[in-house]
Structure formats: C-alpha cells, structure tokens
C-alpha cells in the first residue's frame, strides 16, 4: 500500500522550479515575450499577426482570470449570478490581455530590473520591478496569487496606479446605475465579441 502511494506521488507532475518562485515566474514570462518581440523572424509586416499570436499564447496563463474579475468588481461580484460571472471572466481577461499586448508591441529595448520579492503568505506575493530605458524609470509591481502549483498575476501596478483598483472605480460608477448585463454588453463591445 505504502509503495503504491509512493508511486502515485512519483507519477504526479512535478512543479517546475520556474513556477515555484514568483520572481522567476515573472522573469520567465517577460523573457519569453521579449524574445518574441525582438526575434528577427517577425520583422516583416506580414508576420506581425503571427507575432501577436505567439505573445498571446505566453500571456494566456499569466493572469488568474477569476481573481482579476473578483477583485475588479469588488462588492459587486456578489450581485453577479453564476452565469454572469462565467460570462464576465473570459471577456475581462481578454480585455486585460489586449491592453497588455498593446503595451508590449511598443517595446523599445527597455530593461526590466527585479528589485524585490515580498512573500505575503503561502498564497500571496508581490514582485517589485523597474522598467528602465534612457528616458524612463518606471516602477511596476506584480501582485501574485497561488491557487494550485503555479503562481499567477491578479493585479499589476504601474507608478503606484493599480489596474484592478482603476477598473473597480469604473465598474462601481457604472454599476451604480446599470445592471451587470449592461456591463457585460459594454465589455463585449470593447473586446469585439
């Protein structure tokens, strides 16, 4: 029996080192995106769509879509029905990914410095970075959560401005007068679905 148990553990997929540590998780993702952005393979205009698709594949698992949605809706998360939550989450993730993609294509040789890693608890962490170029010094903080084997990002703050808090302010002002259905409709419009 004990041997069987041991064998079972051995068969479980081992979490890789990169996923174990918040900073290396961010670093691995950022490096992968920069590698695609600077690859000569995508120089020509015809390959730009392919380049975006490649970046999107990397970014796909970068964010925790449930946590992003929950925290951005704040107290209004509760008035969403399960169906509305299920509809909202992928749409909002798509919007965040669009924002991220648009930012990344303007990449112009900036260097990312990893300054500090704060482990808040077993499941929460912050990775403090600075984006630098000759005329820029921009602090970026990644807020991370671990629900299973891997850390994921649930908020990003740039120059002390948190993405989630910003959307929460907007959603609050919208949902004071409108229904969750209206918000989902606007979100669909924004993401072209």
């Amino acid at each position, binding site marked *: 029996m004990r041997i069987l148990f041991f064998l079972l553990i051995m068969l479980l997929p081992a979490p890789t080192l990169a996923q174990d540590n918040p900073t290396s998780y961010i670093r691995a993702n950022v490096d992968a995106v920069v590698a695609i952005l600077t690859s000569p393979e995508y120089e020509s205009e015809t390959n730009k769509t392919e380049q975006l698709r490649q970046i999107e594949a990397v970014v796909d698992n970068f964010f925790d879509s449930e946590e992003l949605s*929950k*925290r951005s809706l*704040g*107290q209004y*998360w*509760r008035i969403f029905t399960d169906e509305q939550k299920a509809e909202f989450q992928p749409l909002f993730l798509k*919007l965040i990914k669009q*924002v991220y993609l*648009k*930012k990344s294509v303007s990449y112009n040789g900036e260097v990312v410095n990893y300054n500090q890693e704060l482990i808040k608890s077993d499941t929460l962490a912050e990775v403090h970075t600075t984006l*630098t170029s*000759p*005329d820029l*010094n921009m602090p970026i903080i990644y807020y991370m959560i671990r629900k299973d084997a891997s850390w994921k990002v649930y908020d990003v703050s740039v*120059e*002390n*401005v*948190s993405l989630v*808090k*910003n*959307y929460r*302010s*907007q*959603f*609050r*002002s*919208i949902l004071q007068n409108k229904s969750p259905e209206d*918000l989902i409709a*606007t*979100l669909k419009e*924004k993401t072209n679905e």
Partner: protein
Amino acid sequence: MNKHLLCLILGIFLLHGCAAKKTSPELDQPPAADQEYEEMYDETDENGAYPDSIEGFNRGVFAFNDGFITYVFSPIDTVYTGFFPPDIRAGFGNFYRNLGYPVRLINALLQFKFDKMAKETASFALNTVFGVGGLFNVTRNMPSLQTSPEDFSQTLAFYGLGSGTYLVLPILGPTTLRDAAGSVADSFAHPLSLVTPDSAKYALIGHDKANAASANLPTYKSIKEESFDHYTSMKDVYFQYRIGLEKE
C-alpha cells in the same frame, strides 16, 4: 501677487471644511464587501469613492479639456514632436525637473525627510555639473539616489490635511483643492518665478508644462482607449498616483 495670495487663502479655507468631513477609514468600508477584496482607500468616502462634490462641473470641464487635447493640443504636439526629437524633449524635461530642486528640498525639510534632502541635493549637484546644467539626467542609473518628488500639497498631507474635493481645471486638468493650493505655494519657491521680464517667465513656465504634457499624451490616449468610463478612470489614476507619492 495679491490674487495668488487670495487664491491660496481661499483654497486652504475651503480645504478645512473638507478635512473636517473626512470619515475614519473603518467607516469607509462598504458594509457588504468581502474584507479580503477591499484594500484600504485612504481618501475615499462611505461609498468607497474619491471625494468629488462638484462632479457635474468637473465632468463638464473634463469634456472641454478632452476636446481641447484632441483638437488643439494634439495637432500642435504632432508638430512639436516632429520638430524636436525624443532626446531633446527628454532634455527639456530633465532641465525643468532639475530646476525644481528648491521646491522639493524645502518640502522634504518641512516633512523632516532628511534622507530625501540628501538624495535631492546629491542629484542636483551631479546633474547640474555633469549633466550640463541639468539637460542630462546622469543620476538616472544610480538606484541609491532615486526618490519620489515632494511638494507642498504632500507637506500639507503630512500635517494631516485631507485632499479636499477633486477638481478639474480648464486646460490645467485634474487636481484637488489641496493640490491646487500646494501648486500655487510651490510656484513662489520655484526658480522660474524669479525670471524677468514676466513675458519670459510665463513663456518658460508654459513650455515646461507643455513639454511635460507632451510626454504624457500617449498615456492619456491609452487611458481613454482602455477605459469604460474615461472620467472615472482618470480621477482614479490621479488619486492613486498622488496617494502613492504621499506614502513615500
């Protein structure tokens, strides 16, 4: 001069009323909210929103400013950025930032932030001497000299004054009562205030502001594009950024 003083006194007087109304952070929590999703907002009211008692007026001015940016400032900016390459514009920005050193020093002193005073002084000396009068930011790559700028509004916050209501000024854009009063006070300590004649002084101040606005224009456009409610998004960015500065 008298007009400025009047604005300042009026501003501080108005602020007092707002500061007194501020509720304690515990009361700011929306009752139905899950604790774990509600990080603390320092300047929020009982609805969890930032103080904006003249929202109708602000939205009107905001719409005017947005039109001004789109139809007046942007076309001028296209010519300006076409004429001056990025390095030159960054140089202008560095020069004006370096020149604002006395304002940052005085306000760091008023808040007993001696560490900041030392960093500011070292940066100013190095950038003035080795950065050709501040045109080059030679301390940019020195992590030990990096610090966030202090201003009089942050000094007032340090002594416990609340932000007062959000305010959108024509052309000048988002501010709060306290920030507006602080900017007026800071302008007296700024070296540009000593420039004579007045026409040269206002031309330089105007160029400083326009050059900074030009650098921020892409960010403004992306916020507009990515937001659901442009006005609320800008207000939130403004407060988050300012509160972040106050904490440092």
